[in-house]
């Protein structure tokens, strides 16, 4: 009796030790800072070094149109970027998973991966070199006679989208390849054999099968895009109006940590609720989706 009890204790201790790094990481780097931010966001400075609990920070967000405009814009742009990434990544993933074999398939995968060997800053600066007024693409357009004078291709919404899609592509391709590879080719042939057109094979067989992968990719890309700071700021300049920029401004420029913390929490709330809505709309379960990704 006693021995069995001791052994169970030992097993629990071992399990605890194994989980310790993960638990430490979660508590010290994620939960504690967020608790601190939560407390910050619910207080208001009334005098130097004098604070009181209040909802003032959140009230400011809704009272000031600029803030929630940028908030909504960030959400919409992220959703569009996610959708575009899905549309571009799907054919790539299909090619890797179903059309190519062996070396060719791995090669295409590596091509998708290569941009990530370079840091995000350098990658984005590369885009700037290509797109700025005196850059490669505008002068090429002039040479080809498409435009008379070099035009500024930076600082547009479409430029931000291009940058975001480029940055996110791999994170969509990976879960898609996984879920498409597990699709038995015989199912596609069987559907085709039973009279289905290419479109209905995609709609009835491929997409339902790949749904967890699609959802997983969309969640990851949406969250990354929503929280991206560098790409919108560099490619969109002052016009980017990205919500992370507002958070940065509050913390760093205005030194208004209370307001920044409230914004941070609003962004967290936004991404969580968008993921929840997405899962509900597609009838997916979070556990299943995360297992596939």
């Amino acid at each position, binding site marked *: 009796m006693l021995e069995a009890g001791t052994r169970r204790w030992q097993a629990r201790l071992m399990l605890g030790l194994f989980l310790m790094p993960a638990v430490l990481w979660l508590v010290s780097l994620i939960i504690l800072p967020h608790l601190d931010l939560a407390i910050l966001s619910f207080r208001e400075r009334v005098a130097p070094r004098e604070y009181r609990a209040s909802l003032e920070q959140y009230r400011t967000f809704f009272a000031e149109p600029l803030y929630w405009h940028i908030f909504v814009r960030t959400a919409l742009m992220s959703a569009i970027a996610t959708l575009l990434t899905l549309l571009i990544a799907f054919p790539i993933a299909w090619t890797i998973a179903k059309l190519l074999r062996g070396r060719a398939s791995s090669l295409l995968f590596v091509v998708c991966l290569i941009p990530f060997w370079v840091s995000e800053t350098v990658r984005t600066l590369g885009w700037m070199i290509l797109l700025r007024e005196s850059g490669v693409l505008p002068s090429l357009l002039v040479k080809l006679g498409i435009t008379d004078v070099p035009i500024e291709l930076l600082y547009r919404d479409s430029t931000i989208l291009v940058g975001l899609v480029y940055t996110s592509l791999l994170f969509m391709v990976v879960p898609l390849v996984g879920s498409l590879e597990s699709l038995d080719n015989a199912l596609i*042939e*069987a559907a085709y*054999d*039973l*009279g289905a057109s290419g479109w209905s094979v995609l709609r*009835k*067989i491929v997409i339902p*099968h790949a749904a967890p992968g699609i959802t997983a990719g969309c969640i990851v890309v949406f969250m990354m895009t929503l929280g991206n700071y560098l790409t919108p700021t560099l490619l969109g300049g002052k016009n980017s109006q990205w919500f992370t920029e507002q958070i940065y401004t509050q913390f760093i420029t205005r030194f208004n940590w209370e307001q920044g913390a409230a914004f941070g929490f609003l962004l967290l709330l936004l991404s969580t609720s968008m993921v929840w809505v997405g899962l509900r709309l597609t009838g997916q379960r979070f556990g299943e989706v995360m297992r596939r990704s």
Partner: protein
Amino acid sequence: MSTPDLEARSLVKRFGAYTAVDTLSFSVARGSFFSILGPSGCGKTTLLRMIAGFIAPDEGDILIGGNSMADVAPNRRPVNMVFQQLALFPMMSVGENVAFGLARRGVARAERVKKSAEMLERVGLGGAGHKAVDELSGGQRQRVAIARSLVLEPTLLLLDEPLGALDLKLREHMKIELKQLQAAFGTTFVYITHDQSEALVLSDHVGVMNKGRFEQLGTPQELYYSPATPFVAGFVGSNNKIAGRAKSVQGGIVELESAEGWSIHAQAHGAIAAGAAVEAFVRPEVASLGRTSSELPAGHPQYAATVESLLFDGANSAVLVREQKSRFEFRIALPQTGRFADLKVGEALQFGFDPARAVCFPVAGSPSA
């Protein structure tokens, strides 16, 4: 004669230097059960996939119901296929699986539900429409796969070794069920398999395929009793193969002497000259067994032998004997009378067979062939 449901005309398919299907022509009569039997790699799957339309032939044409299928996509052919692993759609219920093809044809929802329920009823799965595919047993899935195809009333149903994934007992059961289904629906079935017993039990006609060609096309009885080539004799049913040289040929009966020095008589198939390399095949049930020579039918050559091993398998029991002089190993089916129930290993026996029921072929490539 009415138009055959399936006709292949000089069909050729090459993969690089390898010819998978080599100038194949055949036709399958309406409402019949046709099997293509061959070892793996003989080209039978390629042939089936060409009929279904997944692969285009390099030469020749396929006619289904009298219409050429060149340039007709798989989803437009009056052909449906039961896949080797069945390929039921796991994302749909059993009923939705059966209704899938109807929906693609634009059949109204109410009609679809009614037809798929009727079809499930006909294959003995009435009321299973709402079930998930993985709730069904292997045999039930098989029936769903067939129902899913037959509900579209195809001219031709192709079956790609659908029993391969089942265990032995279920396979035996499904064999009978398949035959009954085919008889009930009257649809033309084209069935491919490497299992000769499936082909023999199920089919009206069988094409025995080897290296991209049909070695023989005939009824199961013809294949079994009068094989046209050594390959068919060796592949269909079990057979004793005796290779050697023809010592003499008289009135269509070859006297063969094996490399081990055993001399037998067999019916010649094809031109055989004395001295040519030949192969003879004797079915285990053709040979008769006796403890003394007087027990054997008179008039046939007799050989002395000892029992090497007993292969008890109920009705298919056999005994392996060694011919005394040449030590040649020969398989003989045990009669069902129980006369040899007490046979012991090492026992001395007599056996013999009717030379007219043993077949002898010239070996391909020998000078006299």
